[in-house]
């Protein structure tokens, strides 16, 4: 809502309160003022001039040479490019020295050899948007009415010496979608009385009921419909004060009749519609739901097909307006209109919202109906409009009342207590302070001991319950004046859950290991949704996605991280290591929520470590990433529960991929991105893993327990084994561990040789075995016994022989 500071002063005395100050006060007590627009900011030196002569420029086809009387005794020659300039017009002249928007300074100039002392202005040149300028002046200069006095400040005539407050209205404050509503609000804030219009137009002896009748079929959608007939009107442009008020509020002037309906919409918040009575086509207004497939051509010349969801005004047979949204082209008021049929109606929000949404039509009228208008303003608004029509377009109002009224709206009566108010706000208000606040709001109250009962006017449909009253008190008392306290209830221990605590440990570990945390989108494309999924299910799909790329919920994080890598590589960030923790979504039944499982994923590419001047460059490889997973499981006390087994998975290098197991159950994968995929994404060698963080963090771990530091020396035996090339080190280690018995405390791979010195198909792998006994120093025999068992098991179970 755009509120003119000047117009507002018709309803309330703003002496001593500047527009800026008013904006600040309104913002602090209820409605955010998003800006204050000074209409004449950066504008000066524009006067009303009279075009005395207008001829073609001798040297330029498209220019005119005019002689303009500036009203101050000065008559100047001005070259004007506008096609619509003409002799006898009253125009806005930017005189030499004037400043126009954009700091455009007017200077004396010579145009094609002719002097020009100023510029004749269009409304756009004076800072009015083209789409708001009256159609006849939208393409050229503006003309004042012939009776406009010359020499005066044109900006004042155009009401540019005004300031506009832009109200950012929340849906509950529909009451402030009118000047009267804003006046009530400002009155409450400033504690001042307000002056309301009091229309009492005279009517003729002729009865409107002889011209029209109203019949409402859809009573629920339209509980009140008031019709008026105004005869013998003369349609023409509105006076400049009316046009400028509309333009300042963002509405384009059309003609006096239409402008008046819009003016009343702004003043009362009550949408009105004017039909050309002679084009209406009958003497009966019938309001009903549209028939399926019925068509109406609206004022914007668009043919619209309707359904029974939409409410229409008809002449008994065919629709003449899409109720509350837009009128029909067939009954539009034009210059030849002489009799006006004026509609002022109360439509409920539902049907209007539906029609407005279905037809993509958001009008000043529909937005007000959607949020709710004040039923008590339907009749006064019609009276006020009729009165203005007589005043500005001549004619006479026919007598009598024509309306259909099934309205059942009573003001809400809400009670609260002083204790409740103080309990909710944390204040120590007295009842008389509360009474005073409601008096400022012009709400009637009665007080009975500690209880106050408030009769809420229908214009404030947002107030229905006790808490709403508390809010009115709070906001007008001023939140600045509230005490500052902290909750005093029983103390509660604040903490993270075990899961949340561990998740933070995981993040810290990953970051300490050198990975950056990424946050990517959950919504993805059909292709990526299922790629690298740990568990293949049909992905969850949005009913109405905004794009193909964001239409389904991800089943895995890796594709998103690969996208991150690709984005970085394309920007010369060649070495990238990122991880993410986040949900993947596993579909359940229809209308059931999907299972959201938190995953941990990582992707690395480029150099892992580099120290250029020492000549060190270590590219990423499988074991870099595996080391991170192992380190993480050790950090969580799960290293003995975690395992890896060779696997072949879609999108991963078949020779460099493993499944990650937790106590034998697959919880993730790790591997090199398949070279084909790497190529498609423009990636160099890239390694990824993804695992179920949920599984990892919910695994049982043994409580941390101290074990004695050995007092006796340990003994190490190194063995180099020759085995088949495809023998897994992990398998050998298992054999050793199982055979080594209790004395064997540690087994580590310390060498791997697959070079040419080996027999074809063989490799050498060396282990270091550490034996110790916490109770005594081991003898050679003790060790030999255990060690021989190991060697025997290796030979029998893995075909491994000691390398000679």
């Amino acid at each position, binding site marked *: 809502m755009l509120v003119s500071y000047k117009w507002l002063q018709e309803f309330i005395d703003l002496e001593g309160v500047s527009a800026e100050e008013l904006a600040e006060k309104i913002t602090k007590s209820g409605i955010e003022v998003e800006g204050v627009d000074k209409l004449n900011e950066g504008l000066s030196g524009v006067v009303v001039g009279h075009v005395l002569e207008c001829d073609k420029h001798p040297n330029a086809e498209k220019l005119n040479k005019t002689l303009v009387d500036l009203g101050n005794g000065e008559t100047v020659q001005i070259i004007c490019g506008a096609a619509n300039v003409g002799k006898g017009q009253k125009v806005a002249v930017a005189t030499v020295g004037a400043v126009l928007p954009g700091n455009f300074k007017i200077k004396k100039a010579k145009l094609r050899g002719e002097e020009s002392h100023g510029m004749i202005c269009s409304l756009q040149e004076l800072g009015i948007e083209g789409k708001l300028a009256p159609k006849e002046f939208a393409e050229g200069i503006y003309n004042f009415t012939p009776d406009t006095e010359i020499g005066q400040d044109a900006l004042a005539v155009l009401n540019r010496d005004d300031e506009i407050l832009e109200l950012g209205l929340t849906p509950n404050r529909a009451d402030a979608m009118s000047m009267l509503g804003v006046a009530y609000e400002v009155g409450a804030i400033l504690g001042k009385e307000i002056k309301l219009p009091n229309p009492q137009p005279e009517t003729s002896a002729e009865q409107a009921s002889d011209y029209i009748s109203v019949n409402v079929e859809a009573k629920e959608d339209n509980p009140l419909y008031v019709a008026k007939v105004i005869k013998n009107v003369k349609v023409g442009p509105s006076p400049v004060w009316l046009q400028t008020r509309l333009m300042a509020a963002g509405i384009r002037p059309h003609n006096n009749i239409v402008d008046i309906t819009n003016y009343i919409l702004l003043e009362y918040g009550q949408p009105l519609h004017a039909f050309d009575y002679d084009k209406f086509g009958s003497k009966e207004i019938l309001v009903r739901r549209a028939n399926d497939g019925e068509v109406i051509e609206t004022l914007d010349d668009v043919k619209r097909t309707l359904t029974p969801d939409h409410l229409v005004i008809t002449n008994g047979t065919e629709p003449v307006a899409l109720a509350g949204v837009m009128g029909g082209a067939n009954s539009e008021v034009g210059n030849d209109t002489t009799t006006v049929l004026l509609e002022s109606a109360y439509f409920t929000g539902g049907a209007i919202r539906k029609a407005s949404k279905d037809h993509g039509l958001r009008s000043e009228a529909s937005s007000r109906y959607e949020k709710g208008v004040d039923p008590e303003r339907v009749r006064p608004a019609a009276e006020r409009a009729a009165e203005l029509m007589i005043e500005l377009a001549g004619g006479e109002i026919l007598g009598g009342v024509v309306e259909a009224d099934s309205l059942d709206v009573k003001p809400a009566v809400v009670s609260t207590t002083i204790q409740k108010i103080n309990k*909710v*706000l944390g204040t120590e208000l007295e009842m008389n302070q509360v009474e005073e606040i409601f008096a400022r709001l012009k709400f009637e109250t009665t007080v009975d001991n500690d209880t106050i009962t408030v009769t809420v006017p229908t214009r404030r449909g947002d107030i229905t319950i*006790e808490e709403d009253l508390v809010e009115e008190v709070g906001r007008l008392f001023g939140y600045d004046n509230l005490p500052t306290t902290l909750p005093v209830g029983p103390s509660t221990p604040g903490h*993270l859950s075990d899961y949340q605590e561990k998740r933070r440990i995981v993040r810290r570990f990953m970051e300490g290991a050198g990975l950056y945390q990424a946050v990517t989108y959950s*919504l993805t494309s059909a292709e990526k949704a299922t790629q690298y999924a740990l568990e293949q299910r049909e992905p969850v799909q949005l009913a109405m996605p905004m794009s193909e790329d964001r239409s389904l919920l991800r089943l895995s994080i890796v594709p998103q991280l690969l996208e991150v890598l690709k*984005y970085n590589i394309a*920007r010369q960030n060649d070495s990238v290591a990122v991880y993410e923790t986040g949900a993947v979504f596993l579909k359940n039944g*229809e209308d059931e929520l999907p299972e959201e499982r938190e995953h941990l994923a990582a992707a690395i590419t480029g150099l892992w470590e*580099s120290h250029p001047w020492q000549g060190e460059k270590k590219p990423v490889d499988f074991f870099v990433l595996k080391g991170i997973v192992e380190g993480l499981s050790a950090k969580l006390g799960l290293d003995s529960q975690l395992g890896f087994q060779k696997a072949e998975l879609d999108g991963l290098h078949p020779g460099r991929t493993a499944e990650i197991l937790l106590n034998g159950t697959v919880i993730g994968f790790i591997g090199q991105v398949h070279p084909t995929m790497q190529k498609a994404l423009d990636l160099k060698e890239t390694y990824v893993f993804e695992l179920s963080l949920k599984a990892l963090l919910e695994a049982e771990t043994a409580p941390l327990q101290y074990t004695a530091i050995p007092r006796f020396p340990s003994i190490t035996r190194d063995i180099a084994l020759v085995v088949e090339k495809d023998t897994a080190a992990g398998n050998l280690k298992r054999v050793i561990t199982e055979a080594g018995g209790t004395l064997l405390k540690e087994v580590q791979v310390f060498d791997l040789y697959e070079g040419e010195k080996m027999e074809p198909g063989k490799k050498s792998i060396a282990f270091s075995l550490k034996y110790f006994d916490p109770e005594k120093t081991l003898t050679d025999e003790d060790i030999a016994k255990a060690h021989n068992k190991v060697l025997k098991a290796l030979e029998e179970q893995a075909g491994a022989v000691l390398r000679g």
Partner: protein
Amino acid sequence: MQDRLKELQAEALEKVAAAADLKELNDVRVSYLGKKGPITEVLKGMGKLSAEERPKMGALANEVRDAISGQIEIKQKELEEAAVQKQLAAEQIDVTLPGRPVKTGSHHPLTSIIEEIEDLFIGMGYTVEEGPEVEKDYYNFEALNLPKGHPARDMQDSFYITEETLMRTHTSPVQARTMEKHQGKGPVKIICPGKVYRRDNDDATHSHQFMQIEGLVVDENVRMSDLKGTLEVFAKKMFGEDREIRLRPSFFPFTEPSVEMDISCKICGGSGCSVCKGTGWIEILGAGMVHPNVLEMAGYDSKKYTGFAFGMGPERIAMLKYGVDDIRHFYTNDVRFLKQFSIEE
């Protein structure tokens, strides 16, 4: 004999002085002071001396030995020192060369903001609650006083999956779920961070996916002044002790009264600038007293219980705090962007 000793001393001292390294010095020691050395030889002739002269000569011989070994010792120290110096000279490095980089990653800036807020509220007795990102219409809207057809549903156009399920548009459903779990009993003191989704085209200021963090306190005597005090603690911790806060009336269907909180603009100190659009204030969050319908729907007696709730956007906070100018940076994960947040504040 005496002369011979003096002669030997002079000769030995000369050689000590001339020794170029520890080995040469050691040779001198062995050749003069050893058992087969010349001094021992000389002393073998002591038998020929008179009883009177013998002790004198013995003393002289010791003097000569002491003199030589003393010098050797001094020389040895010198040579050792020289050797150390030589080694040190050979071991010079250029200390201005860069060190070996330690591999580090870092938190995403949104995580930093969220954890900072979590920790602040944990310190005030809150727990951290999370909930599903795909929600039931009931928890996302209805339980929050937004029945079907409510005009305020327009305010947050949403991604529906089916009629009854959608991508949550705020983290408030976690509040509804948590209250329901408490079965009408207090106190509830929670903070709920998480991802939320709205039908917005991604641009510099909009993102179809973003973070939200909300707080909720429900108990028998929760007042709006408690909300004000809590938000003040929050604002000063997050944005600096010298920030002022202001509560402005607003509207949310799930709170009544509803407010928005502004903080005084750090850039201009309140006089107005482009960041605060000339107002001197910057909008940070929405809050209010929990609407009685919300309490009742979750099983609380709204005559007995009151509560406050607040919600804010970590992206907005990060953008204000760090001066990030485009919300998309948070989701493209350019490492040049992420790296900037590895500093612990």
